[in-house]
């Protein structure tokens, strides 16, 4: 059986060794071990060996101030809050020593002292509670739960929602994407218009009468694409020359052959 009462120590004074001057030195050496001025005040208050409700605040103030004095004498680095507390306590001491002035704007000394007493009591109480709590039975230390819990086994079955349309779409998209991926834009063989104009100007002079456009075409029996390009360029060149007034064009019917003939005057002029 656990016995929390053993740890329970509401007054905190039975177990606490009294502090005399020598202990105060000890206190100072351990200053790093304290968690702030309130912690030190509580330790000092305990040294009065009375119930916290009964402690003498004036005595506590003296204890603290002498503690700070000694610490400074030993040139210990004191955090600012220790000094702030010292200043406040010095102020409190002056209030406690002065006769009470009811009309004064100053805070009530008794109330300030009560406030400090309460803070010390509260800190002491929560420390005792913490000790009791931590010494009570704890899971994984004093009691245990099922070591090998049997968890719920979940038998999951999955259903997949998919339509034929989605499969088709996926395949179509894939095909399209791969198609784009494989495009290889080869440079198509081109018979340039410049070349065509040059050829036409050269040949058309030798033709006296109306001559079909076909007869001016270069021949590329091995290369259909180049042949097509040449046809297009020769036609364009014909139009260009007609625009420049160098040749006349005739087409007797829709889709019929195009005939061209050099303009006489220009020809003469050109030659």
């Amino acid at each position, binding site marked *: *059986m*656990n016995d*929390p009462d053993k740890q*329970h120590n*509401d007054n905190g004074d039975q177990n606490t060794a009294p502090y005399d001057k020598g202990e105060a030195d000890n206190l100072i050496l351990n200053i790093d071990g304290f*968690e*702030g*001025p*309130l*912690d030190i*005040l509580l330790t000092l208050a305990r040294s009065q060996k009375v119930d916290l409700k009964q402690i003498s605040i004036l005595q506590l103030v003296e204890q603290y101030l002498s503690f700070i004095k000694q610490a400074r004498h030993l040139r210990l680095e004191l955090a600012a*809050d220790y000094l702030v507390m010292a200043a406040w306590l010095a102020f409190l001491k002056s209030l406690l020593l002065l006769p009470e002035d009811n009309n004064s704007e100053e805070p009530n000394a008794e*109330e300030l002292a*009560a*406030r400090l007493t*309460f*803070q010390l*009591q*509260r*800190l002491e*109480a*929560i*420390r*005792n*509670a*913490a000790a*009791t*709590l*931590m010494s*009570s*039975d*704890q*899971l*994984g*230390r*004093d*009691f*245990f*739960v*099922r*070591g090998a*819990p*049997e*968890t719920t086994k979940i038998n999951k079955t999955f259903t997949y929602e998919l339509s034929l349309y989605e499969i088709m779409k996926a395949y179509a998209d894939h095909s399209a994407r791969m198609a784009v991926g494989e495009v290889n834009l080869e440079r198509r063989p081109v018979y340039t218009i410049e070349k065509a104009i040059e050829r036409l100007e050269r040949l058309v002079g030798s033709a006296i009468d109306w001559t079909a456009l076909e007869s001016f075409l270069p021949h590329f029996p091995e290369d259909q694409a180049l042949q097509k390009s040449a046809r297009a360029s020769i036609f364009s060149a014909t139009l260009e020359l007609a625009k420049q007034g160098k040749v006349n064009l005739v087409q007797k019917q829709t889709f019929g052959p195009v005939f061209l003939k050099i303009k006489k005057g220009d020809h003469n002029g050109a030659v």
Partner: protein
Amino acid sequence: MVQSENMRILEALIFASDKPLSTVALGEHLSEGTDVEALLEELRQSYEHRGVNLVNVAGKWMFQTAPDLAFLLRKELEEERRLSKAAIETLAIIAYHQPVTRAEVEDIRGVSMNKGTLDVLLETGWVRPLGRRRTPGRPMTYGTSEAFLVNFGLNSIKDLPGLKELKAAGLLDNVNVALLNLVNPQEDIEEQGELPVENLS
């Protein structure tokens, strides 16, 4: 011992789990109209003197080893569970004063809170944020979790050791309220400053 089928089901469900199960969750496995509470009480009694006990923690049910066998099973707490003095003190303040703000914890301890302290406590899963207080600055308040109750074998925050005494002594009150009581002792101490704990239930 002849057990009813319902009791066998409850026993199996709670025994299988390493976490406490609520009466409602357990009831879902029994036919409607079953008096689950009564069955659980009966089951609890049948385990009362065994090596494993049925206990009511955090308002839920679980099996755990009997406390008197702790000597046999006691283990060192894992490293991660070993909390610093400051963390333990902070945990106690949060437990007894919840919902409590960081500033209030600092006020009670008289020192500003170390950066990591709250993190460590949140990490243990014992402390959780409880929401913001409707005061200027809307500070976050903290309290304890179900895991905290389970860890210390408490059915509710009201079962915290020494809580009644602390409350009666006014040590859980706000300083100003406490001072008011010191100056004008009131008849009805219970009335005033209801425990914030109530928010948890």
